[in-house]
């Protein structure tokens, strides 16, 4: 049995105690000969198995309404160093473009904003963001702030501002980034029943860098029918928002920059139990606790402030305030997964996850897929996932003058400490449906392609606004709809 604890499934798909059997049924004749020779010579199958097991993938992701699109190739290499030890290398490249809700409410009149990257330039000292990977097509945002810089680096056409028409949700069009991830993992058997793993990961994008280390131990019991495991993951993130970090609840058009860089640490602890119940049924239970400390706000998101449903005139725009989130978050997760062999080849995979945190969010995730073997090579895998979360205590689609913010003339005083209109903190359900088609080749390599569709459903309690006001009849939550195509090819190299 394998260690359960890993970052993004870093333990791979190998089952050391099962891989020998799998090869016997699927390996080539040459492979079987090598295996037989190794066995005769007294070596294990794994020791005889040199080379890399390569898992390669490509994800093409697209959100509806021209929001985010992404392309994400990934490579995963596993090498059996000796019969007890394996090494894993994980590489991901991720490129994103598109538009993302900026947090402001749609209204019955047009609203004009400065894009996130340019907003930083106008509001802070200009520190060569032109070379940043996130520079969008921006030109002459605010001449006053750019007078001491040349404009050679400006994109062609386009402007630093964007306008959401009446009734349209304000989307920042400047969302563009590349992410690189490198992960390393090392797993070894300490004794016939104890296994340990350590690993690390580095990822970077233009405004975010993450370092993490993880370690886990596992103990097999009951004739390998039970595995208990304990794992930990420590992560340190550096956030360098374009234009610096805005002061929480500061005015959008007069943003106060408080720092160029913020950080966050995340510590995870997970206790796992996997159990073989019958020849056809294996189960896994995980209990996890995670504590995040540090900057956890979205530096580019803000909230509309409305008085009786009407936008409020501010100095250079309507009144919007940058969001504010607590610096501490502790969440608890319970996960239960079952694999049930319905026939000798068809396997039902079901799982349920419950999460609760001290921000007031509770969520349930139910996931089901069926590996349906169509013949000796082909299989189909229908997939259904249902998700539901409650809103964070401080989630608000917009702030109300009077109760949330006191507005006097051009001044304002927030009456709350935390507020965010980020839909990811709102109450919603989401359904994913998908279908994967796979082809297993005789040499143990496999090709699969999957198409999936995701749709959120708003579950938030709507705030009443007077008929005829700016926010009257407007959607208060931006439901995300997306589809993705995922290809995977795994082979021995």
């Amino acid at each position: 049995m394998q260690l359960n604890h890993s970052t993004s499934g870093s333990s791979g798909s190998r089952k050391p105690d099962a891989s020998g059997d799998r090869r016997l049924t699927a390996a080539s004749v040459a492979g079987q000969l090598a295996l037989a020779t190794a066995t005769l010579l007294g070596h294990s199958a794994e020791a005889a198995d040199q080379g890399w097991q390569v898992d390669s993938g490509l994800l093409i992701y697209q959100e509806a309404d021209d929001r985010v699109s992404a392309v994400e190739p990934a490579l995963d290499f596993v090498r059996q160093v000796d019969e007890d030890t394996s090494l894993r290398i994980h590489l991901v490249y991720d490129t994103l473009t598109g538009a993302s809700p900026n947090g402001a409410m749609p209204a019955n009149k047009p609203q004009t904003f400065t894009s996130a990257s340019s907003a930083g330039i106008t509001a802070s000292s200009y520190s060569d963001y032109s070379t940043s990977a996130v520079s969008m097509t921006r030109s002459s945002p605010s001449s006053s702030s750019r007078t001491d810089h040349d404009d050679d680096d400006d994109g062609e056409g386009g402007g630093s501002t964007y306008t959401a028409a009446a009734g349209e949700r304000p989307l920042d069009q400047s969302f563009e980034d590349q992410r690189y991830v490198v992960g390393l993992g090392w797993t070894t058997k300490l004794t016939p029943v104890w296994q340990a793993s350590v690993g690390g990961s580095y990822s970077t994008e233009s405004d975010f860098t993450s370092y993490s280390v993880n370690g886990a131990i596992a103990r097999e019991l009951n004739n390998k029918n039970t595995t208990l495991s304990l794992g930990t993951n420590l992560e340190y993130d550096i956030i360098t928002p374009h234009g610096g970090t805005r002061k929480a609840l500061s005015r959008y058009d007069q943003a106060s920059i408080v720092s160029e860089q913020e950080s966050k640490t995340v510590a995870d602890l997970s206790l796992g139990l996997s159990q073989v119940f019958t020849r056809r049924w294996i189960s896994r239970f995980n209990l996890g606790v995670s504590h995040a400390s540090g900057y956890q706000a979205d530096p580019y998101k803000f909230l509309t402030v409305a008085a009786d449903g009407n936008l409020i005139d501010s100095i250079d725009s309507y009144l919007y305030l940058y969001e504010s989130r607590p610096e501490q978050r502790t969440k608890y997760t319970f996960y239960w997964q079952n694999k049930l062999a319905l026939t000798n080849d068809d396997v039902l995979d079901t799982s349920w996850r419950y999460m609760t945190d001290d921000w007031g969010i509770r969520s349930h995730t139910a996931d089901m897929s069926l590996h349906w073997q169509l013949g000796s090579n082909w299989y189909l895998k229908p997939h259904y996932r249902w998700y539901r979360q409650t809103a964070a205590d401080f989630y608000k689609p917009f702030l109300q003058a009077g109760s949330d913010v006191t507005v006097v003339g051009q001044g304002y005083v927030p009456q709350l400490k935390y507020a965010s209109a980020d839909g990811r903190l709102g109450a919603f359900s989401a359904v994913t449906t998908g279908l994967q088609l796979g082809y297993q080749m005789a040499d143990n390599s496999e090709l699969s392609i999957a198409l999936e569709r995701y749709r959120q459903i708003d579950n938030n309690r709507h705030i009443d606004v007077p008929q005829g006001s700016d926010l009257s009849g407007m959607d208060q939550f931006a439901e995300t709809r997306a589809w993705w195509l995922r290809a995977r090819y795994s082979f021995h190299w």
Partner: protein
Amino acid sequence: MNKKILSVVAALVLLSQLSGCAGVKPWQRDLLAKPQMSLDGDAIIMGYEDHTYFSKEASSGGRGFGGGGCGCN
């Protein structure tokens, strides 16, 4: 919250003890050895799922320590 967690841990330990009596013998592991019965699944696909949902929802992890290393949330 702590009471809830303690009771779940107790239930898991009890479950592991109970199931110890039954036990599937090594020669009965033919189906468990098939790749589609592996609890860990495909690393690449799990990575994609963790990243995709982490960027849209407030929950992450459970199966592993998914979700880290991304500024998308």
